């Protein structure tokens, strides 16, 4: 269902420790936001893209599809920034282009950092990490169960959609909307039914309310972490120098 999830499970850095990957991703995100966009943002974007494609060997096709996702937002947002509302209506803002370019560069840097994390680390690892950092156990478990249900319900929704299309449920916008409404209405009880059945299935395995599993935890590689911190220190230095 999600090519992102697939990459997260199959990339070369899958088994690197969560600490290394999240310090790199969140650190770079923070740097991109904290310093003026030029030249920090392009450097962050470059480093994160290289880490994703070269380091973790994430397929470029998957990465490109993801980068393209927020493009519409970026276009409209930047257009708004470049324009200003004056007395004579809309006009080009004096610093508009520079502001738009800066925001765009920062956003792209942020997206590359986010994608690095999303494409190298399964979402469940991040939830487990958040739990160790103090996220309440119940919430973490709901998130983990939700993740599991996503794929099941996603497959169901896709099959329903295919079935509707095969019976011409997509012919025309009105029919399409109706079909989608009916699909969602049918998906809801299916979802709740899934929940009930999983409850029975897990009760049979001795579930009493807590969901404990044994997970493997990759050990932090201190040299790797040192490399990450050095790069971030370098980017920060660049930021101070440019300021």
């Amino acid at each position: 269902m999600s090519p992102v999830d697939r990459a997260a499970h199959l990339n070369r850095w899958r088994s690197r420790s969560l600490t290394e990957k999240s310090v790199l991703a969140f650190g770079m995100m923070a740097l991109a936001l904290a310093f003026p966009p030029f030249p920090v943002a392009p450097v962050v974007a470059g480093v994160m893209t290289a880490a994703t494609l070269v380091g973790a060997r994430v397929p470029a096709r998957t990465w490109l599809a993801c980068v393209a996702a927020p493009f519409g937002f970026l276009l409209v947002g930047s257009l708004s920034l470049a324009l200003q509302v004056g007395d004579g209506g809309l006009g080009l803002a004096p610093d508009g282009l520079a502001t738009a370019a800066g925001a765009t560069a920062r956003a792209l840097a942020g997206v590359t950092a986010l994608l690095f994390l999303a494409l190298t680390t399964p979402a469940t690892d991040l939830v487990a990490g958040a739990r160790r950092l103090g996220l309440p156990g119940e919430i973490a478990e709901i998130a983990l169960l939700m993740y599991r249900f996503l794929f099941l319900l996603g497959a169901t929704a896709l099959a329903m959609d295919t079935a509707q299309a095969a019976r011409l449920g997509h012919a025309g916008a009105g029919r399409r909307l109706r079909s989608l409404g009916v699909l969602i209405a049918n998906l809801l009880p299916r979802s709740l039914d899934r929940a009930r059945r999983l409850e029975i299935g897990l009760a049979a395995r001795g579930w009493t309310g807590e969901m404990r599993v044994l997970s493997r935890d990759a050990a932090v590689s201190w040299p790797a972490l040192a490399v990450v911190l050095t790069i971030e220190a370098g980017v920060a230095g660049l930021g101070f120098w440019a300021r």
Partner: protein
Amino acid sequence: MLEAQGLTYAYRDGGPALSDLDLVVRRGRRLAILGPNGAGKTTLLLHLNGTLRPQRGRVLLDGAPAGYGRADLNAWRRRVGLVLQDADDQLFAASVEEDVSFGPLNLGLADDEVRRRVADALLVMGIAELAARPTHMLSFGQKKRVAIAGAVAMRPEVLLLDEPTAGLDRAGLDGLLAALQALHADGATLVFATHDVDLAYRLADDVALFAGGKVLRQGLAEDVLADRAAMAAAGIEPPFLLTLGLAARDAGHLGATDPLPKTRDAALSLVARSWGKSRAGS
């Protein structure tokens, strides 16, 4: 009438792929696409009704390459129906009648015509008495037949069925097979994907052996299923009844032109006859 040429498709999320696949569906025939689970049979069916668009290769309808514009797709799906494996994924309405009317209504038919088609479809599937039943109160086998009726009511020229018999017990299977025979007798072209070699042998005129994203061999059911090399390549064991029938032929208990046994009863009586003969002979 329906043809795939050099179909190639790979999912981005790593699902089963097709690679340079050729297939021909002939009008009025029953074709089994036979292959192991997870080999991509469903992917192939989704190409045959235009849901998926091949990355390379093409699908032809009566010799003309199929188009993927909205109007093209509608025309295509009107001619080529699809029934997925899980009936629960395709029943949306509260009652059987209402559900089966979904397709005909989307065709833009008049109410009278829709009613007629729904009644006909339920009749041919042998479930006329279920018309007013709520869909969630149907048995597994009944749901299956309602799902097929939903496609049949659109009067497609070809009906694609994904694992039509999966999970059915004996009674459900008999009911479904009878319904499919009735459809076939009405002139429908049937294509079904299955991993069940015995089903393919029992129901199909033609078999396409599918493995590794390709059709390894397509031809008359008996020929393909008896082709040991091809079957082994696809990782499929030949149907037991066919093996038995061929052994009987080899042993001289069945003439070279006598029909091979297609049902268990036929096989039993063939064997019983052979023993009768042998006892009489001894």
